[in-house]
């Protein structure tokens, strides 16, 4: 199947439609919530939560013996929340920094989860196969009920975000100030964190424990490059996330043996790279272009004012001089000279240059302006 076939089948084929919808919704909700995580400088939180969810999945299986996704996801939710509150506890009760707390919980829970997974795999229970799909995710296992669950949770998340928008923004920008205004910052914090945990748990089946944090961070990091408004950033992150989901699914469905989760993450990373390079205000490309054009302007002005100083000493301002005296130290390049000729500030005759009337006037103005700004 190629990409074209995929897009013609996506509306009619049940499986494709389910998976595409699922990854799109997942991308949107993680993108939205990821904006909050990125702005709180808790980028690693997503990684810690997703890894902390693994032992929950294994324990849920060991206790119930069931393998349906909802049971396992409840286990993931419980252990994800537990990990999150431990992280908060470590940060507030000890003097460890948050990155240390995140790292500790991440490796502790993940290690325990892996231990349980290997234990389960040694069991003589035929039912045990396939639990390891939660490590890297398997979008193909998504069924309609999973997508409904994602849609409902995303819906609730959007409503809550809309209601508490003002409180979220306030807490993200200035938590201490939020307290002095009389808001209970713990409630706002728990609301945001709970939704981040929910979104991550929802994505485990599709993208998996290891790559889940990229879904949270990549769309948000890309969105930040394009806007200076929080609402636009959240909206853009949702759109980038959803597109990553759809394109990732399309690419993986149109090739054999490309698992969906990693492809979605790679597509999201393309958004990031593109945004880092091409964003008009914050992108590397335009910054470099601005830098080069500023330098050119400066060289142009330097050369012109150097010529002015030489011309000043002669009665005839258009007295010809040799190009050789315009050495590199004066910012002279062939291009600058050509630009001066194009602007009709300078005429060139063989190896000699001479300032025109117009060029002399412009240079004089430039010179006076410089003196004024230095006063």
């Amino acid at each position, binding site marked *: 199947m190629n990409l074209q076939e995929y897009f013609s089948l996506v509306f009619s084929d049940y499986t494709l439609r389910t998976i595409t919808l699922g990854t799109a919704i997942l991308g949107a909700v993680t993108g939205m919530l990821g904006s909050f995580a990125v702005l709180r400088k808790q980028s690693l939180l997503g990684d810690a939560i997703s890894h902390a969810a693994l032992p929950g999945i294994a324990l849920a299986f060991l206790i119930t013996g069931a393998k349906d996704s909802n049971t396992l996801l409840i286990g993931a939710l419980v252990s994800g929340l537990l990990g999150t509150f431990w992280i908060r506890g470590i940060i507030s009760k000890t003097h460890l920094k948050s990155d240390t707390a995140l790292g500790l919980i991440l490796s502790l829970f993940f290690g325990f989860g892996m231990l349980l997974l290997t234990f389960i795999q040694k069991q003589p229970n035929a039912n045990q196969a396939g639990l390891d799909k939660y490590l890297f995710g398997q979008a193909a296992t998504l069924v309609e009920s999973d997508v409904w669950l994602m849609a409902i949770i995303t819906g609730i998340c959007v409503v809550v975000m809309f209601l508490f928008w*003002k*409180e979220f923004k306030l807490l993200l*920008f200035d938590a201490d100030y939020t307290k*002095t205004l*009389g808001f209970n910052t713990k409630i706002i914090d728990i609301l945001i964190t709970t939704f981040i945990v929910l979104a991550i748990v929802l994505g485990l089946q599709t993208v998996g424990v290891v790559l889940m944090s990229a879904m949270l961070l990549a769309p948000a990091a890309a969105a930040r490059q394009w806007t200076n408004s929080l609402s636009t950033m959240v909206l853009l992150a949702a759109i980038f996330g959803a597109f990553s989901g759809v394109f990732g699914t399309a690419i993986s469905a149109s090739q054999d043996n490309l698992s969906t989760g990693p492809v979605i993450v790679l597509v999201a990373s393309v958004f990031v790279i593109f945004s880092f390079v091409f964003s008009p205000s914050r992108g590397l490309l335009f910054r470099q272009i601005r830098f080069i054009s500023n330098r050119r302007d400066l060289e142009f002005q330097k050369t012109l004012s150097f010529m002015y100083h030489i011309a000043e000493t002669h009665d005839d301002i258009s007295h010809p001089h040799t190009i050789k005296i315009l050495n590199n130290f004066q910012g002279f390049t062939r291009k600058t000279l050509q630009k001066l000729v194009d602007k009709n500030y300078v005429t060139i005759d063989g190896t000699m240059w001479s300032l025109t009337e117009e060029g002399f006037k412009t240079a004089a103005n430039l010179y006076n302006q410089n003196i004024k700004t230095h006063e």
Partner: protein
Amino acid sequence: MKQMDTIKNAHSKDEAPVSTGVLAVKVDDLTVAYNYKPVLWDIDLEIPEGVLMAIVGPNGAGKSTLIKAILGILKPIAGSVSIYGKPYHKQRSLVAYVPQKGSVDWDFPTTALDVVMMGTYGKLGWIKRPGVKEKKASLEALEKVGMLAFQSRQISQLSGGQQQRIFLARALVQDASIYFMDEPFQGVDATTEIAIINILKELRKAGKTVIVVHHDLQTVPEYFDWVTFLNVKKIATGPVMDIFNDDNLTKTYGINYKVSVQK
């Protein structure tokens, strides 16, 4: 030289404390500790209504901590705070706060006006969104600090002094009775400093109480009418004219200070 003159002119000696005899803030036995090490030790403090007060002391004296503990940002291990005779948590709407400029990430995606609007959130309470009235008040506050033209500017594109003015405007829009400010003059140029002190003096004229963590001892007699010396313990508090002297400065800073105070 020109700038020095303007600073002097900003100060006029005829402004005596307009204390009304009512206590705006009363702090009892306040003790704060980090890691078992006391940062503030048994602070008793009475701040009369209508004063413009500086809190001075060396680095690590607990000046910011005092403000944060009064405002409930930090949890004290002992002590209580009352605002106009009632517990602080019942009187929050009477109190506005200007944090240190460096305490937030100025690259946050928002505009100057948006930050000032945050000052209205407390009175709005949960869920309710700011409307026309709040926007109007915020624009007025921006005008007061001379930042109206920058209202839609992204906050990272403002200079340090402009950011400080935005924080001040955010507190002004709270329309409080008591203003706590954590080093509002830190890293601002002379023009901004004069603009800020003029606003603080206007606030006092309107009967508000203003409490400022301050570093520049030279300007204390010019700017303030009330002062608290702090170094973990409270050294002294009272009218600048009476207690801003070498004796208290030496007690607070531990070295022999000579600051000539013109009375």
